[in-house]
């Protein structure tokens, strides 16, 4: 469903992606791990075409999204959801208005239908009763769930998660992952989850990939990654400070 072919990208003179090749099958959850600053979020943004590659291409259902014009891109994006690291909720709007925004502005639905869908999604993520609150009035975990509701409300086929549990306490982080797993069972979306908390996320993943120095260093089932003999993968998994990965 998603194919990344020979993707290269430089940012501020640094070669962040140096020929990434990756494919994600329909209905699959793929976890992407790797050191901070090694381009995991940059890769996600290329898949959403928020970034354009220096070389290489991204295909969604065999269609190269690079040359798409704005209306074609809009069509592709209507199948995509992106849960940003900080949630990216609009701070000037209530939780309800945030979730209703794409329905009102993009789909132009009637008020009753918007209301029904918004309340349903907020209930699904456990935020019933928080409709009138503003993003600054709710906790980080609630912000993530509200952002997830905003992504889910237009029922995307592909959801890109950029560190969905970062900054949350273990219980809330676990609850978010359970929610993603449950939603995936019900809706069968295709997903890429960028995370550092791979031990927990691996439990809900079908495959995992490690991005290192701009390329995919390892790809396989979560168990294969956990049992990998590759010294770089091993060091990352065990968190050793000594090894081939320099953290300085």
């Amino acid at each position, binding site marked *: 469903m998603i194919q990344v072919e020979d993707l290269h990208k430089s940012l501020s003179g640094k070669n962040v992606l140096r020929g990434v090749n990756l494919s994600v099958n329909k209905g699959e959850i793929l976890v992407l791990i790797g050191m901070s600053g090694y381009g995991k979020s940059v890769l996600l*943004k290329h898949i*959403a075409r*928020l970034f354009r590659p220096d070389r290489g291409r991204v295909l969604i259902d065999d269609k190269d999204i690079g040359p798409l014009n*704005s209306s074609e*891109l*809009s*069509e592709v*994006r*209507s199948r*995509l*959801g*992106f849960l*940003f*690291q*900080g949630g*990216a*909720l*609009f*701070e000037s709007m209530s939780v309800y208005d945030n979730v209703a*925004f*794409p329905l009102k*502005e*993009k789909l132009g639905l009637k008020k009753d239908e918007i209301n029904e869908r918004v309340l349903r999604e907020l209930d699904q993520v456990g935020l019933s009763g928080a409709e009138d609150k503003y993003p600054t009035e709710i906790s980080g975990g609630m912000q993530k769930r509200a952002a997830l509701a*905003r992504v889910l409300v*237009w029922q995307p086929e592909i959801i890109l998660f950029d560190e969905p549990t970062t900054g949350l306490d273990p219980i809330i982080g676990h609850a978010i992952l359970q929610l993603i797993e449950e939603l995936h069972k019900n809706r069968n979306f295709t997903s890429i989850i960028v995370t550092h908390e791979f031990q927990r996320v691996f439990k809900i993943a079908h495959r995992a990939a490690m991005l290192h120095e701009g390329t995919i260093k390892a790809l396989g089932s979560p168990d294969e990654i956990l049992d990998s003999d590759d010294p770089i993968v091993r060091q990352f998994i065990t968190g050793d400070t000594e090894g081939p990965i320099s953290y300085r």
Partner: protein
Amino acid sequence: MGNMALFLIKTLIYGFTPPLKVINLLKQIRFIGTQSIFLIALIGAFTGMVLSLQGYYTLNKVGSVAFLGPMVALSIIKELGPVLAGLMVTARAGSAITAEIGIMRISNQIDAIEMMGLNPFRYLVVPVFFAGIISLPLLTQIFDLIGIFGGYLVGVKMLGVGSGTYLGEIPNYLDMNDVLEGLYKSISFGVIISWVSCYKGYYTGTSGYGAEGVSKATTQSVVLSSAMILIWDYFMTALLF
């Protein structure tokens, strides 16, 4: 500069093709225009007052105190009204617009709009652009009126110039072209402020990330807008003189 020009062209294209986000436009008019009225009135009053004070002593030396009214009115309407209103709006609203859009950029809110298949220009840039064009001339008119009145208070009530002399001489020296000059200037300053403040906010990430990036973008926005207003003012004056 090329990117800034492209940004303006995109703004114009999206601005003159529907749909226009009217609610966002009204919010921006309220922010840029309505909420600047007090500041503009205050600065306008004191500008008129100091002009009157300075003008009186200068004109008194050459025995031409009767020209105090026209001098204050012409200075304010042709030059100080549009320029000072522009600089005040830059400081109050332009900086806030850059900071707000910049924060939306670094917190991925602009990306989120794009991911919904919507155009961020229509929601963030176009309303500010038109609000600037609508608000600046109106604020300038308020500045002009209050400035002339401030000059009247000092000249007539404090320094003893005749009320009829101060006000009566103004129509003899002020014509429609002078008023239009101020109007054209204020419209162009509205374009400069909204263009620069939106551009700097929209591309906040390019000047550094996080709070530092927003801070840099805001400073650059205020400095560039102010400099452009003063430089453009010269060319407008030379052109319309």
